[in-house]
Each structure stands twice: as C-alpha cells, then as structure tokens.
C-alpha cells in the first residue's frame, strides 16, 4: 500500500520534474484531447494554461500554438503545477493587446471537484488532507453517483475522472454541449447534483422532499450497497455515545408528530418491545437506552431502521455518504483546474485518470509518484542498455520518448486516457458524418 520502496521527497522535485516532462508526460494524447479534432478552429490556441513555478511563482494566461510549443515550454520552464483554464475569444498570451472588454472566456469543460476535507464532519478515520482506504469509499460512492447522473440524467457522454493527487477526484465533462454551457447552466447542474447543503452552522444538512426524486433514489441505491460496510462497520458511526449522538442529531426535532402523521406507525415501535412514548424527549431517551443496551453497532443501526421512517433514514445515509461538491468550481467558465498528468508537489503523485468501469480496484496509494516513475524508468533503461545494441543513434532518442512511459506504471493511466480520447474522436467523426449527410454531400 504505502510506497515505502519509493518514498517521495519534495526536495527531489527540481531533479525529477525535468525527467518527467522530457520522457514521461503524454504530450501527444494530451494535445489530442485539448485540440478536440481542431473543431472549432483555434480551440487549442486560445486555451489558457497556468504554471506554478518553484517558490510559488504563479503565471497565468499562457497559451500555445501547437503541441510542440507546449512541450518545449514545459520542458524549459519545468512547472511544479499545471492548471487548465478556459478557451478564450483570443490567445490568452495576447490578452493585453486585445481591446478591453473584448477578451473573454468562451468555452470550457464542465468540471467537478470532490474534496475529502468537505466530509470531515462525517469521517471518523481521518481529517483534513489525510485519506485512508477506509474513507476512500466516499470517493468511490461519489464517482458512481455523479457519473450515473451526468450520463443518464444530463446525457453527457464524455466524462473523464481524474485523481487529484492527494485527497479527492475531479471530473472533466468534455461533450461539446457541456463545454458551451453558460455560467447559469453550470450552476444549475451543480445545484441539481447537490443534496448536502449547509455550512458549519447547519447540523442537519439533508432535507428530502416526499416523494423522493428519481435521481436521488438512484443515489440511495448506490449508497445502500456500501452503507453497512462503510459507515456502520468501518467508520463505526454507532461506536460510542459521542458518535451515535451525531447520528441522532440528524433526526428531526419534532420526530414524534412526524412519525405519527407520515407513517401511521405507532410510536415507540422499537424492535425490543412495544414501548410507548409521550414526548420527543422521551422518544430520544428511549432510543439512547436501547443503543446502550444493545452493545454493538450493527444492532444499533438495525434498531434505528426499525424505528425511523424511511425518509429520515435516507436523510442520514445521504448526509454521511452523498457526494459533496463545490458549486463554485463548477460554475465559473474561467475557473482554473489542476491538469490531468500534472504532479502533486506535496505527495508526488501523478493526477491520473481513473477507470470508472473498475472503480473498486482503484487504490489512491498505488498511484505512481514521480519518484517511483523515475526509478522505474532508470531500472528499465539500464536493463535495455545491457541487453540491446544501440541502433541508429538519432531514431533512438525519439523512439525512447515515445516508448518511455510504456515502460513504467504510467502505462495503465495513459491507456485509460487514450480510450477516453478515442471514444470522443469516434463521436466527433460520427457528428461530422451526420452533418455532411444532412448537407447532401456525397
């Protein structure tokens, strides 16, 4: 799990980054993606990139005319971080020479950022920038739920999920429709997908309507398949009085009247005896006593399930597991987001694409780091040199660059990336055919 054979030290970055950018970064696939088949014209040339250099020097409004220029610049400047911004009305590098008011962001992928810190109030294993395999389940759940909704509800076909490098995931929705969405539309999509609302001052963050919207129902189905293992067992949310109080705090205050009116169930329908209660306080006390009596988390959860109405149980599950996204990241057309295949300076991990079809197998702690990649490369190169003769000297350099990443653990992630790009290219071809058919071209 831990990369103990290849420990990462941030101090090595200045030495490792040049190797990474010279021999491993998948420029041609990267360009294929961002060029979108050259449609519309200048899409790549008008794209903003930003680099963060050593000592936190931040440079914005960078743009490049072609893949070669991008490559050369990255190899020359050796950025610590790379962000991708919007496609503008003019080349970002020339934005100062454009008439003021005229330079503006026109298009960008619809993006989502899920950050583990937003779940701190419902994680017991870690907090802040830390993650572990227990809480990583939250990301798996988030990806499943959002990916389904973006695909089935909104009809978006080209969704790239990327590991952020430390504590979260990003989604890049690359459909043409998505890239051309207005700010209002992006905000509406993000709101549609938001269920957990409220800041630190809000204790109960989920309020469902009755009946439950089909999209939420789908989300609950996903959560149900994980909840017992993840929340009840691993996170152990019923472990102690301290933790189960937090769960009980999510039960609405006027629970008594609610239960009576909405379910017609008789109050005090605890599985361990038909006790009746006269007030909300008594009801809660009853639950508490029951919890103490029962002595194990699984039983406590069962008890709660017997007592509460379905909708309140769903609200609890959603508050503990439903994806928490930052609406502001998705809203802005000109928002800058970490680029896939960039390095996370604090962890050394590469922002790799995630295979959504095999989510269960994704392990953030096995994601290659820049140091591990460089070591792999070293080893492989030594092996090659021992085994083969050098052929004609020139071709070797180029060949080396083309095949280098394939000798390392970057192969897998690049393959996932390629599949994603191919699917998009197929779809683009299909659209062009449709258009020419309509136009009556032969």
């Amino acid at each position, binding site marked *: 799990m831990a990369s103990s054979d290849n420990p990462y030290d941030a101090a090595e970055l200045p030495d490792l980054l040049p190797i990474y950018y010279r021999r491993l970064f998948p420029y041609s696939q990267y360009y294929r993606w961002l060029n979108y088949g050259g449609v519309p014209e200048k899409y790549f040339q008008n794209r903003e990139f930003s680099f963060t250099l050593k000592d936190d020097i931040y440079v914005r409004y960078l743009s490049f005319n072609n893949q070669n220029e991008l490559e050369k610049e990255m190899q020359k400047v050796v950025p610590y971080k790379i962000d991708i911004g919007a496609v503008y009305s003019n080349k970002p590098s020339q934005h100062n020479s454009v008439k003021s008011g005229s330079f503006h962001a026109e298009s960008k992928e619809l993006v989502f950022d899920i950050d583990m810190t937003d779940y701190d109030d419902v994680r017991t294993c870690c907090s802040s920038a830390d993650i572990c395999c227990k809480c990583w389940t939250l990301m798996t759940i988030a990806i499943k739920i959002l990916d389904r909704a973006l695909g*089935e509800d*909104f009809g978006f076909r080209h969704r790239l999920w990327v590991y952020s490098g430390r504590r979260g995931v990003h989604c890049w929705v690359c459909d043409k429709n998505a890239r051309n969405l207005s700010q*209002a539309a992006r905000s509406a999509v993000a709101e*549609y997908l938001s269920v957990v609302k409220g800041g630190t001052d809000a204790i109960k963050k989920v309020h469902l309507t009755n009946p439950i919207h*089909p999209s939420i129902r789908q989300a609950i189905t996903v959560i149900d398949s994980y909840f017992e293992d993840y929340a009840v067992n691993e996170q152990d949310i019923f472990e102690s009085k301290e933790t189960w109080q937090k769960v009980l705090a999510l039960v609405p205050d006027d629970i008594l009247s609610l239960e009576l009116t909405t379910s017609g169930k008789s109050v005090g329908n605890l599985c361990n005896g038909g006790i009746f209660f006269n007030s909300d306080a008594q009801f809660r006390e009853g639950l508490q006593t029951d919890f103490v009596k029962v002595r194990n988390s699984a039983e406590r959860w069962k008890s709660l399930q017997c007592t509460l109405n379905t909708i309140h149980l769903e609200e609890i599950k959603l508050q503990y597991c439903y994806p928490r996204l930052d609406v502001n990241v998705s809203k802005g057309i000109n928002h800058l987001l970490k680029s896939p295949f960039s390095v996370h300076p604090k962890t050394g991990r590469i922002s790799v694409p995630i295979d959504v079809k095999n989510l269960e197998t994704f392990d953030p702690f096995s994601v290659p780091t820049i140091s591990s990649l460089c070591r792999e490369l070293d080893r492989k190169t030594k092996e090659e040199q021992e085994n083969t003769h050098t052929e004609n000297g020139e071709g070797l350099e180029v060949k080396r660059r083309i095949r280098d990443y394939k000798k390392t653990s970057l192969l897998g992630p690049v393959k996932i990336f390629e599949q994603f790009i191919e699917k998009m290219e197929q779809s683009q071809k299909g659209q062009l055919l449709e258009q020419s058919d309509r136009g009556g071209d032969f």
Partner: protein
Amino acid sequence: MQFTRSTRRLRASPLAETYPFPVQFYEHPPTDNISLQDFENFAVERLKLLKSVETIGVSYIKASESYNKKLESELRKLKFPYRVSSGEKLDDYEMRRKDHISHFILRLAYCQSEELRRWFIQQELDVFRFRFNELQDKQQEFLQHNKLEYQTIGEEEKELQKKNLADSGGYGSIKISEWLFYKVYFTDVLELVRARKVFLKDGFVYIPHPEIAVIVLNEFRQRLSKSLALASRALPVVQSDERLQPLLNNLSHAYVGQDYSIQKNVGKISLEQIDGLAAKSYAPCMRQLHKALRDNHHLRHGGRMQYGLFLKGIGLTLDQALQFWKSEFIRGKVDPDKFDKLYSYNIRHSFGKEGKRVDYTPFSCMKIIMSNAPGQGDYHGCPFRHSDLELLKQKLQSYKIPPAGISQILDLVKGMHYQLACQKYFELSHNAEEVGFSLNHPNQYFIESQKLLNGSRDIKKESSQPENQQRNQGSQSTRGTSACVSKPTSQAESADMEGLEELLSDVYTE
C-alpha cells in the same frame, strides 16, 4: 339585420390580423407612422406601467391573487391590453398596437447598459407572464401562432416513465395520464433543473403542459435579451442622430412625475434651519452630502451638483445658495476670491443665470442611482445603491434606526429595491405606518417629510400641474414652428424638457 357590429369588426380587421392576441413576443418592429404626440405618450405610459409593475412586484407575492388584481387594474388604467375579450373591439386592437409600439421605443432607451437592460427585461417578463397566464385555453393557439412547437412524448414513453414523472414533480398518476408532456433540453428550463423539480433524462426535461409557462417565459427572456444586445450594438448609429439621443436619454433616466423645478417655497427657508432640516427631513443621500460638506468644508463636483440642485428644489434662492457654499468653503481654507472665480460661476449656472441659461432640475432618484456613480472621495450617489452593506448598516445604526428595521432595509437593498429601501427608511425615521407615496425624488422626500412633521399646511400636491404643463408645452411646439427655448426663466422649462422639445419640433418640421 345586424350590420353595425360586423362593420366595426371589418374595419378592425387589419389590426386584428397583426394583433391576434393581447400578448406577443415583439418579434417585428412596428412599421407604421404615428403622430409625435403618440410617440411620446406611448413611451411615457409604458414607462409608467413598467414602474408600477416593479412596485407591485415588491409589495405583493408574484402570481398571487392580490398581485394579479393590482396588475390588472394598472393595465386597465393605463389602457394596455391583457385579456382576450369575448367580443373584440377596435379599442382592444388600438391598445395592442400601442403596446407594440411603446415596447420598441423603450427598447432603444433601455438597451444602453447592463443595468437598464436587466431592469427592462424583468418588468417586461412580469407583464408577459401575467398576460400569458390570462390566455388560459388559448395558450396552445398562441404558441402555435408563434411557431413554438415543443416536442411531446408519446403514450408508451409516458407509461414507462410514470413513476419517475410522478416522483419528480409530485404529480398524481391520474393527472399524468391526462396531461400532455413535453421534452425540452435542460438549458431552456434552468430554474426547474436547479430545484430538482422535474424528471431529467438524457439532458431532456419532461414538463407537463400546465408548467409550459416556464419554458415560454424563458423563451421570451432569451429573445428579449438578444434583441436588446443587438439594439445596443446598433445604438451608436441611432445616437449619431442628435435628435433621438436626448429623447432616449430622457426616457431611460426619466422618472415619470414631478420634477421639482417649481418651488412654491422659494425663500421660505433660512440658512440657519438647514442643519436641523438635514437631520429631520433629508433623505440619506442628501444627509450624507450635507454632513460631508460640514465636515470637510468641501464637496467635489458630483456632490455639489446633486446637493446644490436639491437645495434649489427645497427653496433656496440664488443668493442664499451662494452664501451657503461660500461660507462653508471659506472654512475649508478656500480664498474668498478663489471661490468667486471657481465656484460661484457654477452655482449661478445651475440656477440658470449663466451661459445657456437653462434652469437645471434637481436630480431624481432614478438619475442619482443610475448615472454618475461615486468614486473615491465622492459623497454623492444613493447610499442604498452605492454604499457597502456593512457601511450602510453602520450609518443606519447611527441614525438610530432599530435593528429589525435595518434588516428590512438591507433585504430591500439586496433585492436592488433602492427606492423602496429609502421609503422604508422614511417610515422608520418618521415613525409612520405607511409612507403613502411612491418615492422617486429626494425633494419629494423632503416635502413629504415636512408635511408629516408640520401637518400639511402649505405644500399642496403639485403632481398634476407640472406634468400637464410639460405635456402642453410639448404639444404646443408641435403645432407651432420653432420650439426653441424662448423663455429661459419660465418655470416649466427644464433642462430635460428643453432638449426634448427642440428635438421633437426638429423632427417634424422637415
């Protein structure tokens, strides 16, 4: 034999063809000729309508019964169409024509800035919504006529999605079987998507017929927004025509009502009273300016204009004004001679005693809010519009407004209802239940305040008079030849009106 009715209908038929419904999308600009009188009147009346719509919209919950009743009576009063009547008469069509023309005139005036556009679109949208709902079972016809065919879903798909449809919108299954459902791409109904109130599949929202209004409204808003953007791009060409420019500016800055250029109280106020009056009867904008003047012994140009004209409006004579400003500026280490050279000319100018000799009118709220935003070191503008919320709060606290009142005011400010916020301030600072007037001018604030504090003795309502005079002047000049301002000191002549008259006469003497 019933000839009369049918002949009336026959005569009405060309208009009836152009205007089959009391509501429209304003796709095509009017092409006929109208009289000058109508041109001005139509525009002014529509502006009145839209301003009422704004006020009603804040006083009542939109689409509630009381809101609808108020809006209906306003439309009726100003003779704008809103309902399909059983036997459509010539009058109905005349109203629709006026509606059409006035909309396009106001478009020119309100396309000029983001803020104006937003305001215009909001009020037009509210009127459209009301009228569309009034159409009731004629809605389908209206949509067809406007080539708005929305894709519907077939019975099998409806059956398949029954549960999803029911759960998304909270509809009963009987209704679902009855209703026609439309499929619309989600970007056309963002509010429904945002609130997750509809079923979404493959990017398409499934909307039952009763909720079609939302889509239609969005369509209206989008079309109008586009048209306004186009209009503003074409505006430089229009504005290069010097005749139209002042008219359009006036419309967009005009507040329809008194302009306080007639002072019945000239000379009735003494300079010693001013500090007291400032604390009791000044609107916050003027109170702020007065305080800044007293504190700094100086005001920059914007502040001098806004406050100076206000003082004229409350009754200061030219001599009093000169004395007032001079004494204050001298305290600020301005040389008396320097004052005479630099500042007194401007004061005299604003009283119409210099140069063009135009008697400038005190700024209305609309003008103060919309034009000449204050910069660093300025104290003019409207505090509700231009002050940071925190600072505004502090200011209101220093004016001893109770906390509950302050939050009411801040809510109105957040909703961009600056004049209503000021009205609320009036109520709270005068301990009045309801204001009893619609605030749109700082001098009006002053007069009403004085009325309340002194019991309404001398100041009678002059609202009808100056308007009529303005109108009459307008119509006189159309009949006459030159409309050049020949009476500079005439009380009915204002800087705004002057341009308008010249323009109007110029256009039609060719």
